[in-house]
């Protein structure tokens, strides 16, 4: 109970920090995003492989099964290889392993990681935003958290779009669909974007609602 409260306070402080940095600098520091992903992915690999080889010595934390840790390790490998087509092999294996043998927790984390990776590669999320989602879903592998994050993005995005763009929305939607079908989404550096608000504060708000009102 005490540990859970301390963890929630620390994660909340981390989220607030990232939200402020994102608003001010439009980028997220590597030490607060990339390094935690590397640590979590590395730990999943050690625990997954270790528990498979030495089941009496190593035990996966958070009630995760051995296959959950292994699937997350494969998803991590897909992230490391994401600049090459070879990433499809561990990515597909991670989905198959999580779907067939994983728990609901493991499936949430693995699918969350791979969907975030795919969205980031497609240009829908920034790499930093995707890492924030990955870290949150690894620490709290709960389908409710994934749902809240999706809902936060969807609701905030829809409200802002309708309020700021109004009648021009169909034309903009047409542009995005046309660009998407042509294989590229419009650049979103702030100049070309229609509204271009930072995503991390929205993710942070959703995660804070989950941490303090749902858990």
């Amino acid at each position: 109970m005490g540990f859970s409260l301390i963890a929630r306070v620390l994660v909340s402080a981390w989220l607030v920090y990232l939200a402020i940095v994102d608003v001010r600098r439009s980028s997220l520091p590597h030490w607060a995003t990339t390094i935690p992903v590397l640590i979590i992915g590395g730990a999943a690999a050690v625990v997954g492989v270790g528990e498979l080889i030495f089941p009496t010595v190593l035990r996966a934390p958070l009630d995760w099964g051995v296959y959950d840790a292994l699937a997350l390790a494969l998803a991590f490998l897909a992230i490391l290889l994401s600049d090459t087509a070879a990433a499809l092999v561990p990515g597909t294996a991670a989905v198959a392993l999580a779907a067939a043998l994983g728990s609901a927790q493991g499936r949430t984390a693995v699918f969350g990681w791979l969907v975030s990776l795919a969205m980031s590669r497609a240009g829908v999320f920034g790499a930093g935003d995707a890492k924030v989602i990955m870290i949150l879903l690894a620490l709290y592998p709960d389908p409710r958290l994934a749902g809240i994050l999706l809902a936060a993005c969807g609701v905030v995005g829809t409200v802002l779009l309708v309020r700021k763009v109004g009648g021009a929305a169909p034309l903009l939607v047409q542009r995005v669909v046309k660009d998407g079908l042509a294989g590229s989404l419009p650049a979103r550096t702030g100049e070309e974007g229609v509204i271009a608000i930072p995503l991390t504060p929205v993710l942070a708000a959703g995660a804070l609602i989950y941490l303090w009102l749902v858990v």
Partner: protein
Amino acid sequence: MAKKTSNLAVWSLVSSILGVTGLPIIGSIVGLVLGYMAKRETDASGGALEGRGLAKAGIIIGWIGVGIFTLSLCAFVVIMVLTFRVS
């Protein structure tokens, strides 16, 4: 003698229903594959196997699941691209 129902057809329906409830897209795709396999199995059995209706239901619900997922994904991508800047 009572006819046997195709297991594939039953699993197709179960997977497809999962696809529109707890296991989006994966459940739908598995349901579709099993549904088409079950349809072929029942046709090839020469009437010894039942479950063609279940397989058909699995296929229809599977396609509905794929459709809902695709539309939701498109809507999500459009909203994200038009609203948020990437970090």
